[in-house]
């Protein structure tokens, strides 16, 4: 439907809810949010978020009025949170869902793209990084191997290992060459990469590089330390910090994606069991954000490693972002997040 029709349906839904409020409605019967949803390409619809009680009737009415343009989700109880970050409440068994109500992230200087493309020490998540033959990607996380005191950086195979073309032991630069990095900016050496398979589906695009002994790290993300992992469930709000688009927020819009066909220099490779993210304020990522760690800002848990993007699709047609499930990445490389 067009924007006018969506707005008319929204007004009807608000009447159904028994209030003239236009945004969040908090009633004794539970939480309800009614809004216009932008699908892209001039298509609009209705977004209804309710807690499964009285709001469910509004959701059903939205489906009656808007058909496939109605996006109705039971989100459980909504609470405002104070002091978010890794210590914020987690989802509890799906029965009660806690949604952070802080505004979308603002890219202050520390997390702005122009800062992340510079040479920065100590190393930190989101910075430009790449193997010496690659243009530039993103430093996703710091990791350790069992029984090994050294610290490694985690990013994509196509960032740290040049899609399996780089030699083990070759230099890794911060910033990446596209951002002016040279041999003087070497911070470590390629150590291991999960090989990219041509004939069979892949699970991850990931590699690690061991850091030189004199390179200091600051493993702090915009939400603080990230030491735990979680599954990327659909509709989960996520964030990432990356070299090209800085700090962005999105939502998981598809899970368990099989047969994702991704273009690489060597040809098209396929990936199974992937996670799709749509940006909530424009595109979630762009070229150069590869390797970013995608995390749940409400819990501070890592959920994915960003590795690819589409030309179109998603809200406003700004393109979709694809991530490897983070547990598959850590398992493939035999590493764990730095704690």
């Amino acid at each position, binding site marked *: 439907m067009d924007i006018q029709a969506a707005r008319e349906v929204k007004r009807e839904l608000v009447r159904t809810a028994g209030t003239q409020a236009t945004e969040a409605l908090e009633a004794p019967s539970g939480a309800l949010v009614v809004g216009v949803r932008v*699908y892209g390409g001039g298509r609009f619809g209705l977004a209804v978020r309710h807690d499964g009680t009285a709001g*469910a009737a509004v*959701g059903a009415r939205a*489906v009656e009025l808007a*058909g*496939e343009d*109605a*996006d*109705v*989700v*039971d989100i459980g109880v909504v609470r405002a949170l104070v002091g978010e970050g890794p210590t914020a409440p987690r989802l509890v068994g799906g029965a009660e869902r806690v949604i952070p109500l802080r505004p979308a992230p603002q890219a202050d200087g520390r997390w702005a793209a122009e800062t992340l*493309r510079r040479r920065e020490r100590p190393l930190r998540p989101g910075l430009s990084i*790449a193997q010496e033959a*690659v*243009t*530039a*990607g993103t430093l996703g996380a710091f990791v350790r191997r069992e029984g090994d005191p050294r610290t490694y950086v985690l990013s*994509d195979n*196509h*960032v740290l290992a040049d*899609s399996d073309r780089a030699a083990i032991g070759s230099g890794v630069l911060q910033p*990446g060459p*596209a951002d*002016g990095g040279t041999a003087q900016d070497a911070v470590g050496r390629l150590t291991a990469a999960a090989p990219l398979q041509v004939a069979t589906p892949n699970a991850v*695009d990931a590699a690690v590089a061991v850091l030189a002994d004199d390179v200091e790290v600051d493993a702090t993300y915009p939400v603080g330390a990230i030491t735990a992992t979680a599954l990327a469930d*659909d*509709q989960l709000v996520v964030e990432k910090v990356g*070299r*090209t688009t800085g700090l962005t927020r999105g939502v998981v*819009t*598809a*899970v*368990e*994606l*099989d*047969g*994702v*066909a*991704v*273009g*690489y220099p060597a040809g*098209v490779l396929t990936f199974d069991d*992937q996670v*799709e993210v749509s940006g909530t304020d424009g595109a979630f*990522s*762009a*070229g*150069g*954000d*590869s390797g970013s760690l995608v995390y749940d800002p409400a819990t501070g848990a890592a959920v994915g490693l960003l*590795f*690819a*993007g*589409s*030309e*179109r*699709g998603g809200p406003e047609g700004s*393109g*979709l972002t*694809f991530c490897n499930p983070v547990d598959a990445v850590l398992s493939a490389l035999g590493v764990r997040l730095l704690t």
Partner: protein
Amino acid sequence: MTAAPEDAGRASREAASAAKSRLAGVLAGDGRVNGVGVVRWRSAYAVRVSVVTEEDRPDLPAEVDGVPVRVEAVGEITAGPVRDGPS
């Protein structure tokens, strides 16, 4: 996205996952398709087939084992380092 039938059932996550695997197997190797996954739809779940273009897409069923099938054109997908110098 294209429409699934109005009378399609309210699929569970498990049903959608099973239907996804079945459809992904059928579509494997089809160059017009670049992903088959599970998505939320109308307070339930559906299978989403990502295609390169709306104009050149395979014929798809409206549902698989009672699970609605949705289609979205997403263009080409590429692994994303910077391609032509700083952006």
